């Protein structure tokens, strides 16, 4: 059985990537609302995903307030697809 990607095999990081699979670009506040995570924890996990090259983080100013948004990279999408495939193999092992 293949090893699960440790970077994705955590609740919050997996939730972030799953949301980004559906929406190409998401604001930090939207991710926070949907994952119900604390801002600090979310920032840490976003940083880890960014360092792995799974997402890109864009910072800009909107109405004089900093705004952070995230986008899934091709590498992140491929990792997610591999992860889902591996999970399916765990859940439905072939004889």
């Amino acid at each position, binding site marked *: 059985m293949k090893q*699960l990607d440790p970077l994705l*095999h*955590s*609740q*919050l*990081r*997996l*939730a972030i990537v*799953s*949301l980004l*699979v*559906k*929406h*190409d*670009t*998401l*604001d930090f*506040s*939207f991710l926070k609302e*949907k*994952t*119900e*995570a604390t801002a600090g*924890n979310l920032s*840490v*996990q976003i940083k880890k995903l960014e360092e792995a090259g799974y997402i890109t983080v864009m910072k800009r100013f*909107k109405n004089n307030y900093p*705004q952070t*948004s995230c986008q899934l990279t091709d590498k992140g999408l491929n990792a997610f697809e591999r*992860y*889902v495939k591996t*999970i399916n193999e*765990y*859940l439905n092992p072939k004889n």
Partner: protein
Amino acid sequence: MKDKTMQPSDSMEIITRMIESRKTNWNDNGHILRFWGWLILFASIAHFVLLEFQFYQIFWTPWLVTIPGAIYTFVYFARMKKSQGKSGFLDKLSGFLWWMFAFNAFALGFGFTFFFGHLGTGIILILLGFASAIDGRIMRFRPMVIGGLLTNLMGFFTLGWMLLLYKDIVDAQNFIILLVGLGITLTNLIPGYIMKREFDRKKQ
């Protein structure tokens, strides 16, 4: 949500929950749907009235309201995208579908119908119903799917009617344009008001 490791079944549960975080794919009060509903209803009635009073040179002018309408829609969605901070594939797909419909309807309305009368109206109704049913399916919003299917059927009946009886119903042709008003009522106005009611109910 805490950050901790989990079982494969937990992973699947999170993926499903996040990807299907909404049962529906619409999250506004249907403002643009109703806006276009009233705009097209107004244009079709005005078109009919001008034809009835034999203003044959200017009967098409009410449709010019679609140009500022398109600009308003573009600005509205650009602002909404900025304020909501998200831009999904389905939103883009839905937007592309309607811009394609607008291009086709515009080309048919201002080109085809000038030469072939209301044959173009039948085709526009088919396209309107088609686009609406697909968009309703994308948004998982049944009233729009039903309105789209009914309008699509109405378009085929209109086209068939015009093709079979074209020469015999010249006097009745003016009424055909009102079918566009009926179609937009089915695809936009009724679903738009149902969407608003459901959205307001969810917000409470």
